[in-house]
């Protein structure tokens, strides 16, 4: 709290409005307002200014935020965390390698590794790298398909879903059989998302389950998943394809993605929740 006794009356009354005066001064100012018409009139003007300013500045929040700005933020790459720390570790590692014992160990490993490499090379060994590279376009295309589907289906009003939300049990058994992935319907109502039904899609020639939700801004957010045979778990990966935002991840042999408008700020949060519920 501030001692305002040396300030002009309008500044003191303004601080009273904000609760930024000490207790004894608050009482003094309230007495003044009650007994002095000029002080009361000044206080009323300050209050009126506050109210009208609040209304006007609330209007600013209703202006649409440029979509390009949202995309730019989502696409901005953060720096590598602990970069300086890893530099320190690297220099420590390099200096350690210069020790005679370490040099000897490295030479030994080189000989052993070279020997193993020779025998594997003579056999039918196939390196992993080309396999991983071959999988990359598959991953890209499944998300392309999902984004394309979303652009079409999210606009549907009467025919948004193939199966309505009233048939929740049927949706679970139908999609489990069709996609080959067991799941539970995530309850996203606490996040303002209402379940609107489900569809069966095809991406990369494989069946994909799509669960559709509508948020309070009337936008469609969908959860899609398919079996992809890759058993690695990984973190969340956010991708923007023009107006569509996708947050994808793998769990076991299943690929998941939460898809919605790229301007939707909560896609990652929704994906995190879905990953624990589905």
């Amino acid at each position: 709290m501030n001692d305002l006794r040396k300030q002009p009356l309008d500044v003191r009354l303004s601080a009273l409005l904000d609760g930024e005066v000490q207790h004894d001064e608050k009482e003094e100012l309230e007495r003044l307002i009650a007994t002095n018409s000029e002080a009361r009139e000044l206080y009323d003007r300050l209050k009126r200014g506050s109210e009208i300013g609040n209304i006007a500045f609330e209007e600013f929040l209703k202006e649409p935020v440029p979509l390009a700005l949202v995309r730019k933020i989502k696409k901005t790459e953060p720096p590598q965390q602990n970069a300086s720390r890893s530099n320190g570790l690297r220099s420590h590692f390099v200096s350690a390698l210069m020790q005679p014992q370490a040099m000897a160990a490295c030479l030994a490993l080189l000989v052993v590794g070279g020997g193993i490499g020779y025998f594997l090379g003579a056999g039918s060994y196939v390196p992993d790298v080309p396999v991983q590279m071959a999988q990359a376009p598959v991953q890209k295309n499944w998300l392309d398909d999902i984004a394309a589907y979303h652009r079409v289906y999210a606009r549907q009003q009467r025919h948004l879903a193939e199966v309505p939300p009233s048939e929740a049990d049927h949706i679970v058994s139908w999609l489990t059989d069709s996609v080959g992935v067991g799941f539970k319907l995530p309850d996203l109502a606490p996040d303002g998302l209402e379940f609107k039904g489900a569809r069966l899609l095809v991406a990369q020639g494989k069946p994909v389950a799509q669960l559709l939700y509508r948020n309070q801004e009337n936008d469609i957010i969908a959860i899609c998943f398919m079996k992809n045979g890759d058993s690695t778990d990984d973190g969340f990966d956010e991708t923007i394809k023009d107006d569509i935002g996708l947050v994808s991840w793998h769990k076991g042999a299943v690929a998941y993605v939460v898809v919605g408008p790229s301007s939707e700020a909560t896609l990652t949060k929704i994906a995190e929740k879905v990953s624990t519920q589905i």
Partner: protein
Amino acid sequence: MHQTAAYNDIRRDLVSLLPKVRRFAMTLTRNASDADDLVQEVCERAITKSHLWNGEGRLESWIYAMTRNLWVDEVRKRKVRSGAGTVDAGEQNELIVDAAGEKAVYAHQLNKMIMSMPEGLSSVFVLVNVEGHSYKETADILGIPIGTVMSRLSTARLRLSAMVTGDTERRA
């Protein structure tokens, strides 16, 4: 392009804060084009420097302080003195409301008048009166003494009140 949850969080938070950050930027730049450029620069900087935010207090306070600092740098670069190129609110045309007195039109005109107020007044008003920052927080964000926050706030309120009073008297 795997992102950690922490990085996703700051980008998500920034997107959520965009309308407010943009509004604050408007009080500094007083035109939408400059405000959008400023917000974009702020957001990029916030993401690349997100490891510097200690996570204490309100994220928007950190963002606002960065916005203000970047704008001060920009003004210096342009060699434009603070407040130059704007019209004092007292000299601005009075509010004109159509016969129906439609609220949207009224609010729009009021926005224009607010944007015509000197930079120092509208940014203090937004931080304290609209967003509920304390005088100390506001002083820290804007890099000015608490006494200046108080006097600017009072001046802003009286100017806003005068705009409305003038309008009411004309309509009567």
